[in-house]
């Protein structure tokens, strides 16, 4: 991780963020202590998890839940809480 961090000479001054839309490059997944685990057999693809996820970390393809973006999921557990079929459980990292 440390080799990816920039030195002070490479940073814009004043703590400014000068590239828009760069949140994707910040790996908030490293903050996680619990990870959501998807149980496909129980999933009814209601997409409540996708609606509630504050980090857009629920991956959906053709209207169907397909898993999680663990690079950005912070492990908040909202998806597991909202799931009406217990198709998501939180497991310790």
């Amino acid at each position, binding site marked *: 991780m440390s080799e990816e961090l*920039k030195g002070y000479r490479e*940073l814009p*001054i*004043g*703590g*400014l*963020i*000068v590239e828009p839309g760069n949140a994707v490059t910040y790996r908030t997944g490293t903050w996680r202590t619990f990870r959501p685990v998807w149980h496909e057999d129980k999933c009814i693809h209601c997409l409540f998890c996708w609606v509630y996820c504050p980090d857009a970390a629920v991956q959906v393809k053709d209207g169907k839940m397909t898993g999680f973006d663990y690079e950005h999921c912070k492990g908040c557990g909202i998806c597991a809480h909202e799931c009406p079929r217990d198709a998501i459980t939180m497991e310790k990292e």
Partner: protein
Amino acid sequence: MAERMALTGNEAVAYAMMQINPDVVAAYPITPQTALMQKFADFVADGEVDTQFVLVESEHSAMSAVVGAAAAGARAMTATAANGLALMWEILYIAASTRLPIVMPVVNRALSAPINILCDHSDTMGARDSGWIQLFSENAQEAYDNTIQAVRIAEHRDVLTPVMVTLDGFIISHGLEVVEVLDKEAVQDFVGEYEPAYTLLDPEHPITFGPIDFSDYYMEHKRSQVDGIEAARRVIPEVGREFGKRFGRSYGMIEEHGTDGAEALLVALGSTAGSAKAVVDDMRERGLPVGLVKIRAFRPFPYEELREALGKAKAVAVMDRSISFGAQAGPLALEVRSALYGLSLPVRDYIYGLGGRNITLEEIEDILQEALEMAKTKEAEPLVKYVSVRE
């Protein structure tokens, strides 16, 4: 053509602000700065400036408004004093660390308690670690000149750091002096058109000001901030020389007066430096080897310049117009000793003039006489003395 006018220090700075014609000024009145903003408000009311003048409910709001304006790409200014500066505290750090080139005259006044509206330097000294550049003025002319130069210093691309220009409350702010006021066009030409390095109001280049930093980047941003104020060591004298070329009055980090061959040197800030010049001249006429080093830039502190100027003397007396409670000396003497690290030179601090206590020419001569004694004995004890305090 420049014009000679009878102005108070406050009026002189208000003239400088009018001639700079900042985009935004946000202010709240506080003695002894009130007359400064009142004069500037006259210029606004008379249509002499294009400034958006924002009257706010506190100094915290004044600095916050100026930070917002500067982030939006405006040339922004305010002015304050004492308790008003104290109320800005939180936002002073934000202005400096966000690298916003704000210029703020500070009319030096004592902090409460007991409540006191007269001059000392405890307000500015408390803000010495906030990241702002600090320029001290000896008189109304310097306050005027410094305010104009501060714009160029703050906005220099290598610096991009806010600047405080100080003037001693009442002594300079309310004293009437003959001041050479430049042509508005000449001032406009000197400060130039402001081109912000970054602005919130550029939809082609959307940016974020003031995001959160965790432990992985905060130190890098602080280290980067150091480079800005360090660059001012080069830029302050550069701008001061150019000002001298154009208008006849040159400025550096320090000013030496009678230092050639001096055995005892006095270090002072602000209006006291003017009184000390008269004392030095008088004592020199009597054959006494004394001199003065006036500090113009307190931040960044002129360590190298001082070491060179003071290193040739045998003793140094420092005059501090504030206390750093619990420290070994006042703020200025601490810095002077640090600049002289490794040299065996006796340095004594004289704390004086708190809450507007007058400092007389005789008292300054007494200090220099003691410094001459120090030059003989090499004995700096006591390290701190309090001038004219009753026991």
